[in-house]
């Protein structure tokens, strides 16, 4: 069976607002750059096209209909994966390894600045019977013994009320962070260090939008949003698009490209029952185990040189590090305090700046992570280049309220 290689990468800049371009324009820019990077003509050389997108983020039902023109897929096999970009890499991997396709394009993007009601879309992903009503209009506990809504004035239907007190769905991260801190003896200051580290790394990344020179004190003094989660613990949203081109090994050699292999990937979904599933990122653990097996990695701590870990919230980087076996349970904070996770440390994490530094690019997050790994493996990371990188790991989570995630492992040939 052929191995699967990355032959092209392309991306736009990442910006908190992009009023000057539409979603098609950013997809076109990223894909055009990736195709130029691979020196291929999409209308002749690419056999299959994949986009990773979620209708609700985009604001279209059946978003796949709005895809082919700008990625070069008109009258070609093209499909849309409703999920993070790493799922697209996995789909492409299967198409190439089965021999069905030779060259596959994978695109993911965020145009979240077009979405005016981000929290409401996210709330729409909660279970409609058990969880949404509780996250909807707040009915405060009432100690008078009288019903809050007497029969003559019944409780309005959810969403049809003029009550303004509702919770943003990020409260779920507050719940999970509380649990994580308690279970691992990690402190809020440790989490603050993640924000400081990643926003500092972002200074070295020309496409990052949220670089900042801040201290632990800044983070600690930022306002509580969902205690213990503070404003600076949260990655802000960003617009941007990324495209990858994968190919079989034969074509890669013919193009004279030094192969970087997609050597392993895995994916996993937990149950949507928020109150039943664990808060230990089991999805990350299982998807990493699958990817390690495929890539032949026995001891991830020793064999993986760098990793981009989902850090949509600061504590998530620590939690995911432990889940995927790059740290033992409760050990992530120790590595952080020692400086091991810095660009110059023994296992650099989120050298790109991560979602905290680059911005949360929704379904493009997995590709943004993979982009950094491939850039590092190619030795093109400029000021943030880490020496002697041979094996890198990208991990993403499908964000609140999901228990779904994926892992990709890249190896230099």
């Amino acid at each position, binding site marked *: 069976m052929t191995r699967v290689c990355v032959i092209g990468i392309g991306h736009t800049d990442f910006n908190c607002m992009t009023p*000057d371009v539409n979603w098609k*324009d950013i997809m076109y820019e990223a894909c*055009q750059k990736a195709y130029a990077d691979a020196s291929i003509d999409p209308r002749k050389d690419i056999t299959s096209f994949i986009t990773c997108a979620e209708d609700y983020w985009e604001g279209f039902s059946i978003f796949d209909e709005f895809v082919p023109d700008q990625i070069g897929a008109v009258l070609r096999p093209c499909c849309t994966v409703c999920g993070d970009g790493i799922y697209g890499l996995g789909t492409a991997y299967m198409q190439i390894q089965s021999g069905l396709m030779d060259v596959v394009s994978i695109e993911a993007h965020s145009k979240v600045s077009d979405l005016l009601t981000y929290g409401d879309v996210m709330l729409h992903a909660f279970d409609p019977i058990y969880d949404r009503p509780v996250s909807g209009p707040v009915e405060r506990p009432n100690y008078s013994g009288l019903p809050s809504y007497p029969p003559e004035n019944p409780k309005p239907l959810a969403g049809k009320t003029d009550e303004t007190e509702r919770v943003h769905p990020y409260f779920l991260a507050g719940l999970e962070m509380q649990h994580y801190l308690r279970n691992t003896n990690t402190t809020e200051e440790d989490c603050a260090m993640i924000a400081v580290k990643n926003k500092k790394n972002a200074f070295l990344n020309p496409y990052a939008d949220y670089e900042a020179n801040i201290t632990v004190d800044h983070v600690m003094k930022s306002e509580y949003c969902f205690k213990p989660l503070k404003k600076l613990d949260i990655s802000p949203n960003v617009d941007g698009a990324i495209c990858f081109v994968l190919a079989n090994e034969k074509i890669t050699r013919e193009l004279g490209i030094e192969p970087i292999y997609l050597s392993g990937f895995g994916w996993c979904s937990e149950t949507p029952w928020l109150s039943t599933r664990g808060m230990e990122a089991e999805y990350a653990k299982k998807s990493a185990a699958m990817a390690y097996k495929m890539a032949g990695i026995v001891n991830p701590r020793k064999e993986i040189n760098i990793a981009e870990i989902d850090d949509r919230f600061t504590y998530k980087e620590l939690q995911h590090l432990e889940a995927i076996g790059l740290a033992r349970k409760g050990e992530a904070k120790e590595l952080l305090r020692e400086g091991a996770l810095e660009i110059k440390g023994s296992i650099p994490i989120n050298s790109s700046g991560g979602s905290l530094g680059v911005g949360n690019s929704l379904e493009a997050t997995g590709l943004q992570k993979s982009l950094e790994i491939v850039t590092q493996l190619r030795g093109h990371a400029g000021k943030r280049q880490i020496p002697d990188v041979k094996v890198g790991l990208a991990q993403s989570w499908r964000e609140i309220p999901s228990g779904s995630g994926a892992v990709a492992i890249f190896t230099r040939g």
Partner: protein
Amino acid sequence: MEKSNKKEITYPKNPAGTHLRSSDIRNKVITHSWWEPEIQYAWSIGPAMSKFLHGLKEGKILGIHCHKCKRLITPPRSFCEYCYGPTDTWVELKDTGTINTYSISYLDPNANRIEDPILIGVISIDGAYPKPMGFMHYFGEMSKDEIKIGMRVKAVWKPENEREGAITDIKYFKPYGGD
């Protein structure tokens, strides 16, 4: 599956369900949960469509060339989907064209009857090529018995002060005799 050495797979014998009527929901015969999302978007439309919509505001239909594919494209876009190259050179087109296909619509989006049916279809705009090249719009000043494929039509514009840079700045297309 009869053989005993095979693993058994079972399946339901009669999966047909029970009829459910909308009145059952209205009358709360069925226990159900209700949710009305508050979801809003404001799309940035990008350089090509912005210029096109600005043209409509001025009462003009604009097109753009792909010189490589020899296309004059409307509605315009910033790249050509056939050769994947950028488009170039804006042109003002006529506001006349030919009906490419149409339908006579008797239902609103919630499937309620409309007494006076709506005529809707695709117009190939004069000057744009290759055919068919154009957009979808309403038809007016013609009856449902008159409309036919190949019919010549012309845009009826809103008064200038009511135009807002939208496809609906054209009210509808009407029959058109001369050139």
